[in-house]
């Protein structure tokens, strides 16, 4: 992967005028009697990498699934690319779905297809891509996510946990989407693999203007590639902001998260302002 440190690229500046790709207002989600989201607000801007943190079982995956339309919401507003999800016709919704790629927490690869076929699945649906280009693009995606060519014809059951993550990312990126949802992309990867993963996301953000909604517990990822961080607790977003703002935040859970044993070690080791690609 290209070394971005040597390149000077202007990052899109955060400004009030930036387009909102995902806008969530006053979202309420419940399973039976238990409320998981209690009036949650969230904005994701075009071209940014948003890191989403929160304790286990706080509902990060549920929020992602609700935005994707896999979980019914009780009430609230979800806007995707500026359109209210509830008002979209099914054809419009399909068009929106073509514009995003999703990496599920457990990969969710189709178990009866090989890795290559998994990656080609969304391409096949697009219908106009020639067989040769599909084969080549599948192999290119595979290489970008750091899988060996020999993995192409393996079935998901024959892959390791980390390889499943990579293959699932390759599938999420198959159509060069504008927006990708990543649920804990670096869990289960070795540190080198995780760093490459971060690098790949950063490269794609710079070159394709990719918007990334990333649920992660990986403090390294949060430090190195996330432009903004949102923290979830008690069914609400308790804080959003850059890493510096999060570090300065008073909330006890955030204090524990970022200044705990692991967080403190990282914060000490790398000052936020000498991070790669940061202004």
């Amino acid at each position: 992967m290209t070394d971005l440190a040597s390149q000077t690229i202007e990052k899109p500046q955060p400004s009030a005028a930036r387009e909102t790709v995902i806008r969530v207002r006053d979202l309420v989600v419940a399973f039976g009697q238990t409320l998981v989201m209690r009036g949650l607000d969230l904005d994701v801007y075009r071209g940014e990498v948003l890191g989403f943190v929160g304790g286990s079982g706080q509902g990060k995956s549920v929020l992602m699934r609700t935005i994707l339309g896999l979980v019914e919401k009780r009430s609230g507003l979800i806007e995707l690319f500026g359109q209210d999800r509830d008002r979209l016709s099914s054809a419009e919704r399909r068009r929106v779905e073509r514009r995003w790629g999703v990496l599920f927490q457990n990969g969710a690869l189709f178990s009866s297809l090989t890795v290559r076929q998994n990656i080609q699945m969304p391409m096949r649906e697009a219908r106009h891509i020639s067989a040769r280009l599909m084969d080549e693009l599948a192999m290119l995606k595979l290489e970008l996510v750091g899988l060996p060519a020999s993995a192409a014809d393996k079935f998901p059951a024959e892959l390791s946990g980390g390889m499943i993550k990579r293959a699932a990312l390759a599938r999420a990126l198959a159509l060069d989407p504008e927006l990708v949802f990543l649920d804990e992309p670096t869990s289960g990867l070795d540190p080198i693999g995780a760093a490459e993963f971060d690098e790949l996301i950063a490269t794609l953000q710079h070159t394709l203007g990719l918007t990334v909604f990333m649920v992660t517990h990986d403090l390294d990822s949060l430090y190195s590639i996330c432009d903004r961080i949102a923290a979830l607790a008690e069914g609400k977003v308790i804080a959003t902001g850059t890493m510096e703002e999060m570090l300065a935040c008073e909330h006890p859970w955030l204090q524990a998260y970022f200044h705990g044993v692991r967080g403190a070690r990282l914060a000490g080791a790398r000052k936020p302002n000498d991070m790669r690609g940061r202004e």
Partner: protein
Amino acid sequence: MATDLDHTARLSSRREGETARFALGGEWVLADSAALEKDAAGMAAAARGSARAIVDLAQIVRLDTAGAWVIGRAMDELARAGVVVSMEGARPEHAILLQEAKFRPFEAPSRCRRLLVIDILADLGSSVVSAARDAYNGIGFLGEFVAAAGAALLAAGRFRLTSLVYHMESFGFRSLPIIALINLLVGAIVAQQGIFQLRRFGAGSYAVDLIGILVLRELGVLLTSIMIAGRSGSAITAELGSMKMREEVDALRVMGLSPIEVLVTPRILALVLSLPLLTFVADMSALFGGLLVCWVYEGISPAGYLSLLQAAIGRNTFFVGLIKAPFMALIIGLVAAMEGMATRGSAESLGRHVTASVVKAIFMVIVVDGFFAIFFAAIKY
């Protein structure tokens, strides 16, 4: 302002003596891939005979990995044709992308073609081998089950009563309504056909003999077994198969627990206990269906029906069906458990094994029923 022109991929070529100049513009993205590939293929033709080619990317508005790949591929083709290719005007982010998605040849997936005849013969051979292997594994599995069941029955502490009762409820109790219903209908249909055919010989009341013997000896147990193979056999295969897929079976094994003992034994025992009970219910409801039809069509009163029935059948007729039931249950349970345990990692494999479980179980039930018929005839029971 974005105009329409910006949204389509554009390519213009110009010759300057020995140099071919290509100016690329618009959006080079996957959504337009057919046009991109055509444009890119045209580049090789346009540059024929020139010594140098310059690819100008300054006008490109949007580029994704597919676009970058197609451009890279075209440039590689030019280079291999002996043209010196250079790139200019690319924005920094596009340059990175072109670097990342630089053309490299990938081995095309091997799609080896063989003779159809050979494929058919190979298929035939492998199904014979797998049938033999099934029989061999089945016997092994039966042995494992008997050992585990024996151990569980001997050591009372290892007997999983809760699990047994739970499975008896789901395999036995919950299939009562459907078993009773289909047997009632079949009993009624057999009675109706019997009456209409036998009436021609003036022997309409012999329909009761027909119903009694046919239902008790064969139909009750056969219909129940087939129904349970479809309903509970498939459930067992699906449960065990998905547990196998998600490594739950492996988790049991590494805890020092035997999957056969924990998962398979209670299910098969539950089937073995439930099926005779269900067969009894099936027999009774089929006889009741016969009673209703005889009453309506032939005017035989319920009391008359019962006395005709008593004359027609002996206790052995009743037991012939019931004796078969536990064996049928054992076959269904073993086949279902074996297929479940044979499931590999994919959803497709699970589907295949569930189908195989039901088909094999029904086939075996009918074959074994035939052997029982021969056996009971031989011992004149």
